């Protein structure tokens, strides 16, 4: 640990600007159209890149004839996997990325790229794609997570042997890995239970649904140096991956992140960017590639569809004695960590003596799964939290009291291993219990549900520069892409440390040539890690300014203190020295030692786990199965909210995505293995009128490992909505939904099945 990470007495910290709500610095540009997104830059001589995609769920590529396309006037390059030779050893995560960017011997899903062209304009590029002849041999496919586990399922990736299983399997399967977490003895625990509920759940595949499609402008010169302008959550990661796949020197590829129109995890991963670079290298011209919405759905990275068995046992007085989860997550045609994350998060909210979670990563013929906001946690939480409600009901306790009794607290051993420090699950539950929403009256066909959620949060590698101009204004350069207003938060932090106003800070996202490596903005790390690095960079700049003041005053630097944006000489014998402001020190800097700057490179450890509890009211139309969310409240622990309005925005956005997932969003595949709804018409994210105003309550249980107590806030609140809505539906119309999304046809079918069984019971 570096001495930067010393504990600060944050609990009694008084902030001057942190915690205020100024307008975001990028706001005006975004609402006036001046902001430059992925598709908004142009280069001289730029070509248009387009990608030919497999219409088959699974097919052997016997041959690709590009000769006619190459001869078409205006076509400058045609690319197949032959132009992207394997430089990564034929296996492993980078090889999977290479295969996903451009199919090699087999197309692994509907939408898998098989060839690409660069041409002088879009019409020519489209024509050229039609001239490429691919000779496919269609292979049997599997798209369902449960079907893929069956012994006779078509094998998606020959050679796959389930990892972490003893003895090692001797046959290929679609089960890529098994992962287990937990402690205690669950068999013994279930023996102590008075009530045991076991239930199977299923969740369908969803997409992050960011409004901006993937887009980039790539340029590679004959000298092997290149530039990539791209919409991404992690330009440093994109640089490393693209350089590795294309055989470029990392330092010679400059990647600049554009403004980003939503990512939610989907832009942590490269899709067509290596192809754009490959086309540019071949054509020796800049190439711009912009995905259509259809391509985004078919060929970027949605989240996993799942099935799971959840079992929870408790005593009559409400103590959980044992809990297990068996989780199946499909990751598309490549192994991932999706099941693993599900197994780690599933019971993280609770203090359990005996717990066991087992996850299976399954391969199917669907797009390569990528992260989606608290990846894998919402599905497991749907099963666990729904079952929690069933247990609470069975023992006659309120869902909130049952959770409070079993909530994890400081010192609890988490189901995934570590022992918790100060955490916020219990305070969020207390806030829910006391919230007026919990006692508001409900109308006919209305019901209320509540549920909890957990997310780890992440810190990671971070580098930040802070430069003070001679007029006293400050350039703060960070390397984490601003996906949720972090430039505002960083400016607040720099202003707080330096003692100047928010408006005097200009926060920039540096390109890969201007800072050391920054991990991708994922795991809700932006404000936590870049915030930490900004604090330390500012403190370093303050040390420089103290030295300049000490030099001017000819006193030891130890006798200079920084307070309210000024250097003060400390002690009675210096009382005649007038404080020197940042502006004065900055103005004098050319003559006192040159530019004043601070910088920080760190691995921001101990991001601080975050918990949320949600309350949801729905109204169900029993005749149509239509469900409307009529009231929604989010309570979440933020550690310390730097910019409370944008923290609330994160809570609301996460809940909105969870509501969409719970009610209508799903990937629908046909018998032919092709995606049926690759567009926003039939992949139904909520529109404005589908959502109530989402109320929020920020709790601040400080993270002891951040100087201000910050925890990540961006992801946790997508975790509870599926179960909160499921329980609300159950309380509204009496059916417990075990399949997400709870679309109108599914709710109607459940209501009919229940009516039929009630009839059978009364007839019997």
């Amino acid at each position, binding site marked *: 640990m570096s001495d930067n990470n010393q504990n600060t007495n944050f609990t009694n910290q008084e902030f001057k600007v942190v915690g205020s709500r100024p307008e975001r610095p990028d706001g005006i540009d975004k609402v006036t159209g001046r902001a430059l997104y992925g598709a908004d830059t142009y280069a001289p001589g730029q070509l248009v890149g387009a990608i030919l995609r497999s219409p088959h769920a699974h097919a052997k590529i016997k041959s690709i004839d590009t000769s006619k396309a190459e001869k078409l006037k205006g076509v400058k390059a045609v690319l197949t996997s032959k132009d992207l030779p394997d430089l990564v050893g034929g296996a492993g995560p980078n090889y999977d990325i290479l295969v996903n960017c451009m199919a090699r011997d087999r197309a692994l899903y509907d939408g898998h790229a098989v060839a690409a062209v660069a041409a002088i304009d879009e019409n020519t590029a489209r024509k050229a794609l039609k001239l490429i002849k691919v000779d496919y041999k269609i292979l049997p496919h599997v798209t369902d997570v449960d079907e893929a586990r069956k012994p006779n399922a078509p094998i998606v990736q020959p050679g796959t042997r389930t990892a972490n299983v003893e003895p090692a399997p001797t046959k290929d399967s679609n089960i890529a890995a098994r992962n287990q977490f937990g402690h205690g003895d669950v068999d013994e625990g279930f023996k102590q239970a008075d009530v045991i509920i076991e239930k199977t759940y299923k969740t369908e595949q969803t997409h992050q649904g960011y409004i901006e499609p993937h887009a980039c402008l790539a340029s590679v010169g004959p000298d092997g140096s290149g530039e990539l302008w791209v919409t991404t959550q992690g330009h440093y990661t994109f640089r490393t991956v693209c350089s590795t796949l294309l055989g470029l020197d990392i330092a010679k590829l400059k990647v600049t992140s554009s403004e980003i129109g939503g990512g939610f995890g989907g832009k942590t991963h490269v899709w067509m960017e290596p192809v754009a670079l490959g086309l540019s290298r071949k054509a020796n011209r800049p190439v711009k590639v912009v995905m259509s919405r259809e391509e985004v759905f078919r060929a970027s990275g949605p989240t996993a569809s799942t099935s799971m068995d959840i079992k929870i046992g408790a005593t009559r007085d409400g103590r959980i004695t044992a809990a297990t989860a068996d989780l199946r997550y499909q990751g598309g045609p490549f192994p991932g960590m999706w099941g693993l994350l599900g197994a780690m998060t599933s019971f993280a909210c609770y203090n359990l003596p005996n717990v066991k979670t087992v996850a299976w990563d399954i391969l199917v013929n669907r797009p390569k799964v990528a992260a989606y906001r608290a990846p894998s946690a919402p599905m497991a939480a749907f099963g666990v939290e729904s079952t929690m409600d069933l247990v609470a009901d069975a023992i006659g306790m309120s869902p909130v009291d049952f959770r409070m009794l079993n909530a994890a607290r400081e010192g609890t051993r988490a189901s995934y291993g570590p022992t918790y420090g100060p955490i916020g699950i219990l305070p969020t539950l207390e806030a829910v219990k006391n919230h007026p929403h919990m006692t508001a009256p409900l109308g006919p066909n209305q019901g209320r549900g509540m549920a909890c959620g957990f997310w780890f949060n992440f810190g990671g590698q971070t580098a930040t520069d802070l430069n003070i101009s001679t007029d006293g204004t400050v350039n703060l350069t960070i390397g984490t892409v601003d996906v949720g207003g972090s430039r505002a938060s960083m400016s607040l932090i720099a202003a707080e440390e330096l003692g100047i106003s928010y408006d005097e800070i200009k926060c920039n996202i540096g390109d890969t040539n201007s800072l050391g490596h920054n991990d991708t903005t994922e795991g809700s790390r932006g404000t936590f890690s870049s915030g930490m690095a900004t604090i330390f960079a500012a403190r370093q700049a303050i040390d420089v300014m103290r030295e300049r003041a000490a030099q001017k005053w000819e006193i030891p630097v130890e006798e200079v203190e920084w307070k309210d944006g000024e250097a003060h000489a400390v002690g009675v014998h210096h009382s005649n020295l007038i404080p020197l402001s940042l502006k004065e020190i900055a103005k004098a800097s050319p003559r006192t030692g040159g530019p004043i700057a601070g910088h920080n490179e760190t691995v921001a450890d101990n991001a601080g786990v975050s918990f949320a509890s949600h309350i949801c009211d729905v109204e169900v139309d029993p*005749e*149509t*199965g*239509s469900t409307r969310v009529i009231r929604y409240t989010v309570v979440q622990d933020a550690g310390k909210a730097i910019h409370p309005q944008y923290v609330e925005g994160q809570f609301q956005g996460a809940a909105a995505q969870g509501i969409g997932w719970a009610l*209508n969003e799903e990937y629908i595949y046909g018998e032919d293995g092709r995606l049926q709804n690759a567009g926003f*018409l039939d992949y139904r994210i909520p*529109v404005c009128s589908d959502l109530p105003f989402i109320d929020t309550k920020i709790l601040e249980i400080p993270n002891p490992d951040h100087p201000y107590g910050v925890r990540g806030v961006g992801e946790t609140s997508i975790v509870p909505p599926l179960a909160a809505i499921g329980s609300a539906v159950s309380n509204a119309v009496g059916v417990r939904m075990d399949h997400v999304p709870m679309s*109108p*046809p599914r709710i109607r*079918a459940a209501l009919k099945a229940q009516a039929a069984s009630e009839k059978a019971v009364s007839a019997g």
Partner: protein
Amino acid sequence: MRYEAPTTTKEAANLLAKAKGKAFVLAGGTDLLVRMKAGMLEPDLVVDIKRIPATRKVTKTASGFTIGASVSGAELGENKAVKKAWPGVVEATELIGSDQVQGRCTMVGNLCNASPAADSVPAMIAAGAKAAIVGPKGKRSVAVEKIVTGPGKTSLKKGEMIESISLPKGGAKIGDAYLRFIPRTEMDIAVCSAAVCLELGAKNVIKKATVVLGAVAPTAVTVPAAAKAIIGTKLDDDALDALAAACEAACNPIDDKRGTIEFRTEVAAVLARRAAKIAFERAGGK
């Protein structure tokens, strides 16, 4: 691709008649342009009819209303007289697309696009709307239900286009309503829908009725048995049950990404029941 913007309907019909290859009429473009951009259609000729004055206006006639083929949904929604006489037709048209789409989309475009899920079509049929067709051989008037023959298919012959839609006068004892089911609250396409138009006689007893379902068959379905079930009644529960049963029997939907056969069938009947109640109330029934 050739683009023409004639100023008379006759000229437009001649262009369409003489066209070689694929010719399309452009009014609002909310279907056509989207398909062209998506690469689903590559027309050889596009005839923009928005400069033809006859297509741009809503006229009150002796027998009712004439609505030009390029009158947008938003414009129709601002016409108080049509809205008063045919609230169901106007509401149905206003459901097409989003606010932005409403500024461009047209009833005739909705009709000629020939989607089984078109919102304005069941409402127009229920109201007894007629289409004024102009072609190389002159003008003819055809009931709206005769226009669509299947998904994406119409009975219009080469060179023919619809200049306007005419609606009857309506009246104090006539009420219409249209309801559709969508999983969202807007920006969607009907999973199933129902339009009901009815006329009350003495003592508020239903004298005439038309019940039309959408998105439950290749074309909008008129259900005479459902109409019969409520004629002679004051829309009591038995009449509504009989209407719903007749509607369910008339459904012939498909299973697809938007809904199952079972769901569409049941919900179409639910919507017909609800639409009948609204229409009854609008006709002055109690």
